[in-house]
């Protein structure tokens, strides 16, 4: 198999919003979900959201970009409303937003309170805001939530105490969301790629090579798993964490 992206109709007719879709892993997921037929809302703070939407359209897809800090529930609701105003009713939210500053390794003892907040608690507030804003649109029609939680959450990582705290908090948030919102027809899951896909150069603490011999590419390898969870095949999966790292971290 070459480097070209897989394509499927898994998400044909669905509206999927990707937070943090303006750059990095979020950008590749936005492009990847379009590969699988979704109409894609690209929202995030980078300022490049509209250009990612352009890239989707150049590939024959449908997309809209909304630049938003997503720092509060009101901002998240506003951004989702803008995206779905252009695309139609919401089906899927993929929370891929991560502040690159959170991935800069530093010993906890040299992390001041401002940095702790920026690298840990801000990420949790944003995840919570996006989950709550999603619920507003999905509570009566059901839908799929997918949160990107790199495998460092499972393994821990020296130098990344604040970020990993946020990742594990988000995994717990997703499980509670799955339990509370299941009766609304909402599923909530986590997809765990290697942290290097989220921040170039970040290292996983694993000591071996991936079983499949190479690390994943976001668009080719991670996006299909997100599409599965967001599409019909994933309808009965909720509260799960799916590791997509080519076989490096293997949960007990």
């Amino acid at each position: 198999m070459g480097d070209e992206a897989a394509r499927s109709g898994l998400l044909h007719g669905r509206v999927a919003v990707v937070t943090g879709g303006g750059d990095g892993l979020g950008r590749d997921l936005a492009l990847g979900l379009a590969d699988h037929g979704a109409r894609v809302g690209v929202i995030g703070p980078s300022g490049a959201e509209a250009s990612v939407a352009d890239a989707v359209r150049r590939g024959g897809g449908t997309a809209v970009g909304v630049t938003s800090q997503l720092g509060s529930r009101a901002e998240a609701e506003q951004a989702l409303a803008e995206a779905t105003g252009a695309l139609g009713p919401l089906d899927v939210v993929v929370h891929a937003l991560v502040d690159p500053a959170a991935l800069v390794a530093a010993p906890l003892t040299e992390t001041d309170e401002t940095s702790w907040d920026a690298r840990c608690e801000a990420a949790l507030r944003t995840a919570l805001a996006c989950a709550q804003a999603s619920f507003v649109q999905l509570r009566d029609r059901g839908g799929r939530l997918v949160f990107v939680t790199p495998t460092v959450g499972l393994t821990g990582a020296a130098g990344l105490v604040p970020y990993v705290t946020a990742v594990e908090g988000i995994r717990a948030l997703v499980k509670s969301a799955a339990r509370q919102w299941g009766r609304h027809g909402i599923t909530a899951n986590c997809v765990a790629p290697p942290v290097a896909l989220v921040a170039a150069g970040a290292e996983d603490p694993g000591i071996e090579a991936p079983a499949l011999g190479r690390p994943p590419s976001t668009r080719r390898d991670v996006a299909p798993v997100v599409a599965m969870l967001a599409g019909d095949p994933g309808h009965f999966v909720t509260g799960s964490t799916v590791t997509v790292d080519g076989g490096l971290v293997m949960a007990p």
Partner: protein
Amino acid sequence: MSGPLDGRGVVVTGAGRGVGRGIALACAAAGADVIVASPGENGAETVAEIEQRGGSAAWVRCDVTRGDDVRAVMAAARGRRGVHVVVHNATSRRSSEPTRLEDLDAAAWEDHAAVSLRGAYHCARAGLPALPRDGGRFILMTSPAGMEGSTMLPAYGIVKGGLRGFAKSLAREWAPLGVTVNVVSPLAETPAMTAAAEQDPGLRPRLARRIPLGRMGDPEHDIAPAVVFLAGDGARYITGQTLVVDGGRFMLL
């Protein structure tokens, strides 16, 4: 008193009641000098109980959300036997308030995050300079809600899940120093549990049916011995782990 923690100083946050009180009592019984870090007068009651049993303890009034308070606790401990073990057990007073995730407001979230997460951060930062290399212990308390989510307490679940990520990462960060970091997940009969059971009379029987050992744990006699073990020499090769002390309820590992 003498035992496995002879000569050690142990700081326990939230030790005025519940599981924290049980940990303080058990550590004192194991020979430690216990610094009871608690924001309320109940800290003095824990100390009185320890002293009445012949143990050694002191109460330092502490709001773990404030770095200055936590540094003062560590300073007080260093003025006694030192800080060999830190147990961050404190949680928000709102921990047992049932909440819908969609209704969780910014103030309630801030309360949970401040006590559990920022509290852990302050304890780690203020504690490390005092903890002995090759032997220091940092212990955090989590909850089933942090590992499997919760239909009742989503905010509590988020912070307790977060603390496991905190512990695993800090365990790697401090391993070269010989300081271990571990987590205990208790299922205990506590004031918080009592309050939750009052809100929801079906809670206790429902829980008991899901506990293979058939009952909630007692903080001092069922939960705290696991903390004493992790604090002692026998646990020196254990780090980054979650020790589940819940009557067999959670068996996913």
